[in-house]
């Protein structure tokens, strides 16, 4: 299978901050790569380099067979991009926005109008088509922006945090749309801070932190990297958490996690069902009251924590401090 997107050793510095620090990735044609990382990890910078908006300081990248620096001009007819911040004109209507993009792809006036109508219909925006975008909801703006990226039916698509800031319903509707696109054979590079989103939409996931890919694979492969199942116990009293942690230390294959507000302790274990039985037996013997007990597969949150040493939703400042 040929790769639609290849990046090798991309470096981009902003003063002393290394936004990209030797980032490499490859996306086979017709697949979806989820670029997963916390705020400030370098996701947007990666997308900007791959969509010709930014020249890397070092490294190279080839998209749809074109070098992003040397063949930038020709590459632009073969990619679509929808940014982290919707790139639409507030004062123009949805239809006018899309028609303008069509004309700038040099599709001609008639074809541009026709394409705009097709996309508006597909994205469920027909009713809002002739209203200025400034009155659109957040979800509608994201949809019209995504539609803009699809005007020329590009074989490679870049979506930078397509659902950040959307409510769950708008997010679900956008997920459906992206899912359909992928069915149609478009190669997609999608960035996200949401583990759930990468899990649901991407064939493969590349975890980025500090401008570098620190792990990649399918969601299952990544989960396997952090070991087996988790025994998750929700107690009724915070005082018991510590007791249980010590009592079940022999069972744990890694550091147990304690969430004091949820009164929950999560213990990585080797053989799931047997460990759960042991744990419950211990709780019964010690007369520790339990609200909930269960076994679960590691989530991408666990992956993240294991790989980076910090939670996925840590904010930018924390990440920056670590860079410095």
């Amino acid at each position, binding site marked *: 299978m040929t790769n639609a997107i290849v990046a090798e050793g991309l470096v981009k510095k902003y003063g002393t901050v290394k936004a990209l620090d030797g980032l490499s990735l490859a996306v086979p044609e017709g697949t979806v790569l989820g670029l997963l990382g916390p705020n400030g990890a370098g996701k947007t910078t990666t997308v*900007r380099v791959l*969509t*010709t*908006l*930014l*020249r890397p300081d070092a490294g190279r990248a080839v998209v749809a067979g074109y070098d992003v620096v040397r063949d930038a*001009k*020709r590459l*632009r*007819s073969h*990619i*679509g*991009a929808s*940014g*982290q*911040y*919707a*790139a*639409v*004109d*507030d*004062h*123009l209507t949805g239809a*006018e926005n899309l028609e*303008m*993009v069509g*004309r*700038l*792809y*040099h599709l001609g006036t008639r074809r541009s109008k026709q394409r705009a109508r097709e996309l508006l219909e597909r994205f469920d925006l027909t009713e809002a088509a002739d209203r*200025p975008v400034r009155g659109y909801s957040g979800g509608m703006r994201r949809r019209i922006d995504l539609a*803009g990226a699809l005007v020329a039916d590009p074989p490679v698509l870049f979506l930078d945090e397509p659902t950040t800031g959307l409510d769950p319903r708008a997010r679900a509707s956008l997920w459906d749309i992206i899912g359909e696109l992928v069915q149609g054979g478009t190669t997609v590079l999608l960035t996200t801070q949401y583990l759930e989103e990468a899990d649901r939409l991407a064939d493969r996931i590349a975890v980025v932190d500090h401008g570098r890919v620190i792990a990649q694979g399918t969601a299952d492969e990544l989960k396997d990297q952090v070991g087996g199942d988790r025994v998750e116990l929700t107690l009724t009293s915070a005082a018991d958490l510590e007791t249980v942690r010590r009592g079940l230390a022999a069972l744990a294959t890694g550091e147990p996690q304690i969430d004091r507000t949820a009164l929950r302790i999560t213990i990585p274990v080797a053989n799931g069902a047997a460990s759960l039985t042991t744990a419950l037996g211990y709780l019964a013997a010690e007369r520790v009251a339990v609200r909930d007990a269960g076994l679960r597969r590691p989530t991408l949150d666990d992956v993240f924590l294991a790989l980076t040493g910090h939670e996925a939703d840590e904010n930018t400042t924390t990440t920056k401090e670590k860079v410095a």
Partner: protein
Amino acid sequence: MNALQMALADGITITKRNALKIRRAPDLLGGVVMLPIIFVLLFAYVFGSMIDLPGISYKEYLLPGIFVQTIVTSAQITGYTLTQDLQKGIFDRFRTLPMAPSAVLTGQTISDLLMNMASIVIMGLVGLLVGWRINSSPGEALLGFLLLVLFAYAFSWVTATVALALRTPEVFNNIATLVSLPMVFLSNAFVDSSRLPGPLQAVAEWNPVSTFVQATRELFGNTNPAMPVPAAWPLQHAVTASLLWSALLLVVFVPLATRLYKRAVSA
């Protein structure tokens, strides 16, 4: 499509986009229609009633100054719009499209030029209402309007350059006001520059705003014998000097704005 055809076609697309924006944005539309009306009425009556000159209508003398001043203000819309667009993602979208990059600035300045032409027409009409008269030949009058249009276009590129260097709407607005106010008031637009104290007089006489005002006065036949033209070369040869200024502004600021645009969007 060759490069030139593409630049033209894309320039027209962006011009149309901006024209639609101007029609839909109340603040911009207010600038086109209200600003020239308010400026003409306010300055004509406030200054026009204060100063009494023997044998000549001060309003006639004053109106060309108001025209130029209004253009200095409304050409700032080019810069302001660019800073606003810079803050949104729209230039990113443009840059991932296979369009001519030059189209963004040519489209912007041309749509603003159309807007400024509308505002020049409105100013002229309101001017006629308050007592301004054209006392020259139709050819000269036409040249007068063309000169105002040329000034508007060249000055748009100046504000575009400043905007692309400063990048945020608030900073741009502050700096633009800070620079344009003295530019207009340290000129012959509203006062007789020969009555200013020495150093200020030199500034006023070499100020390009004065050159354009003097040229417009001459072309509309609004010169005032009670206020003789100072000896400074740009005022003695105001029409030629205005054309030179326009050419100079375009030659310097078109490439400069283009370079700053590239830098501003590739950060």
